[in-house]
């Protein structure tokens, strides 16, 4: 695993510099280095694993189950740690990510016996691509009953372009789910200083405070992309017990639900 990581890392860097998109090459490299840890629930991504307890029901409850199975695209799927639970919950899921090692890690977990036996591997696939390239394909335009971009918008280079692509993937009336971190002094304290340096909830350097987005900015990008924001809720992480709760304040982590007009 370790030896193959450095080889893949080189490949990945070559690839990402070549593509024209909202992808931030440095970010891609950062996540390439962490790829071996995706499935480790107690490792670097433990807070993302526990975030599933709140975001999976949130997504499930807000997607119409009339179409069976609803088609969902998970943009920035990483090691698949949200895509797989969503597929298990009955969605047909396409996970896309710009980090090749992450996509490879996600594909490896598709081979697991329980997913194969339950037929979940048949309605779940991972693609190594940028969201711009992906939404250019005719069969992806307005093709999805739900679009998810969870903990990704704070890692992209061109936010308006990225949000525009998300909107293109959604069919009219389909919900878009975005979770991210606000740019406030609270988030500088909690999400950077406390989470990276003191409590070590996430690896140091994984987040860049300057790239955090306020709900107002996100809302305006969404509106320009032809989406209507229907709800904004705060999220709070409890390091003791490793769990999340919904809160009113959007000073740090928050979630946005929008609908494609």
């Amino acid at each position, binding site marked *: 695993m370790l030896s193959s990581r450095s080889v893949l890392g080189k490949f990945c860097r070559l690839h990402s510099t070549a593509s024209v998109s909202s992808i931030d090459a440095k970010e891609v490299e950062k996540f390439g280095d962490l790829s071996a840890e995706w*499935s*480790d*629930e*107690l490792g670097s991504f*433990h807070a993302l*694993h*526990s975030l*599933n*307890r709140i975001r*999976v*029901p949130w997504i499930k409850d807000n997607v119409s189950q009339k179409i069976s199975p609803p088609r969902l695209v998970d943009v920035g799927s990483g090691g698949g740690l949200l895509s*797989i*639970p*969503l*597929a*298990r*919950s009955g969605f047909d899921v396409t996970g896309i990510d710009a980090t090749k090692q992450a996509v490879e890690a996600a594909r*490896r*977990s598709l081979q*697991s*016996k*329980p997913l194969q*036996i*339950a037929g979940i591997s048949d309605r779940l696939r991972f693609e190594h691509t940028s969201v711009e390239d992906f939404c250019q394909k005719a069969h992806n335009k307005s093709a999805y009953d739900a679009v998810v971009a969870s903990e990704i918008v704070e890692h992209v280079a061109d936010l308006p372009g990225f949000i525009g692509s998300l909107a293109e993937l959604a069919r009219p009336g389909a919900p878009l789910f975005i979770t991210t971190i606000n740019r406030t002094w609270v988030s500088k304290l909690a999400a950077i200083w406390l989470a990276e340096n003191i409590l070590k909830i996430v690896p140091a350097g994984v987040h860049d405070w300057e790239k955090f987005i306020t709900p107002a900015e996100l809302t305006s990008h969404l509106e320009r992309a032809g989406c209507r924001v229907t709800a904004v809720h705060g999220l709070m992480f409890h390091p003791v*017990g*490793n769990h999340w709760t919904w809160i009113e304040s959007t000073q740090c982590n928050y979630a946005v639900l929008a609908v494609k007009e």
Partner: protein
Amino acid sequence: MKLAGGTVSCARNASSYYDAVIVGGGMVGNAMACSLGANKSFTSKNVLLLDAGRSPSLSSFESGAPFNNRVVAISPTSIDTFKKLGVWERISSHRAKKVKRLFVFDSCSTSEIEFERGQQEEVAYIIENDLIVGSLYEKLSEYKNIDVKTEAKVAECSIPNGLENMATIKLENGNVIETSLLIGADGVNSKVRQSSNLDYSTFNYNQHGLVAIVNIETSNGKNETAWQRFTTLGPVALLPLSDTVSGLTWSTSPEEAQRLKQLPPDQFVDELNHALFSQDDQLPYVNQAIFALNRMNPFRSETFGRKAEGTTPPHVITVQDKSRASFPLGFGNAHSYITTRCALIGDSAHRMHPLAGQGVNLGWSDVQILDKVLGDAVREGADIGSVTYLREYDSAAQKHNLPVMVSVDLLNRLYRTDAPAVVAVRSLGLNTFNSLGPVKRFLMNYLSAHR
């Protein structure tokens, strides 16, 4: 669906997969299987129950058949669990003895405590272990998502460090089973716990529990009180099984247990009655203090002496043939009940002194908690072997179990001495507690409201 042990004709080392495998077909393992069978989130999952033996047939529990010497006191909370699982009818239609009152007293003083609930309400039911095992087993055949393998002995299990691998169980016949979640319900010497490498604290009490079935005689012909007398070697308990039969649980030193087991029946009965009635160890000045306090207590209804009725246990007449058996008593608790792809329930996770009759009730509480957590995990699309979810079971179960286990341990230590100072403190404490009606009612409501 039931698979008899021999009919699973897989090739040697052939590997099969189940979403969850429960090792151990006892009172707790079978209840876990029934819970998952009834769990709506599990209808599309496959669960396997591995039973090392064969389940007892319910026909041996018809009225008139001799009582089995292993019995348990079932709390109102556990009765609710059985009602929910749809097995309570089956159990109570055979034989389950309702206990309306629990009376605890001390060989060293006249202190006493009495637990009683409303006229129609029970404090507990006394039921034979195997009747519970058999009733749960019968219920299992109604669930399509549960497979049962009887006479399936586990040779070894392996538990992975991460979710990328499955847990595997190798049976003695060479079959290998893979699973997302291995549930250890295989008792005190759990193989699953040993394979999990979870830290486990344990010690022996240097006490043995002697069990027997005895015929008794009560003053009013009714046997509705569970009696427990603390003696310096350990508590003696008589648990009603019918109006004329009670189950005995006598905790005493290992040597005593050995000697008592081998005594001729009539001598055994004499010694048992002596343990229940003897006044030899009474400390007069403690009793005088209790008497004085009782006279001053405004909450106590009868201030002159003890009411005679209902404060003396029944006389033991005979002990049933071959019903005496004994086993060592100990305390144990796994520091964590879970690891990736593994959860321990019941005695495999924790073991305690039988004096309060709580052990198996804690096991059923584990079942309830784990069943709920696993249901959440499936609904949220998670891997059921994920510690993100299993941790919730661990913390809820430890929080529920540890206070009970520690109190019972302390109680046992407190009553194994006849040092006058300790006797005085415990007697007055117990007696005061018993006299303070409002306080006691509050505690009883708290305990039984814990549903």
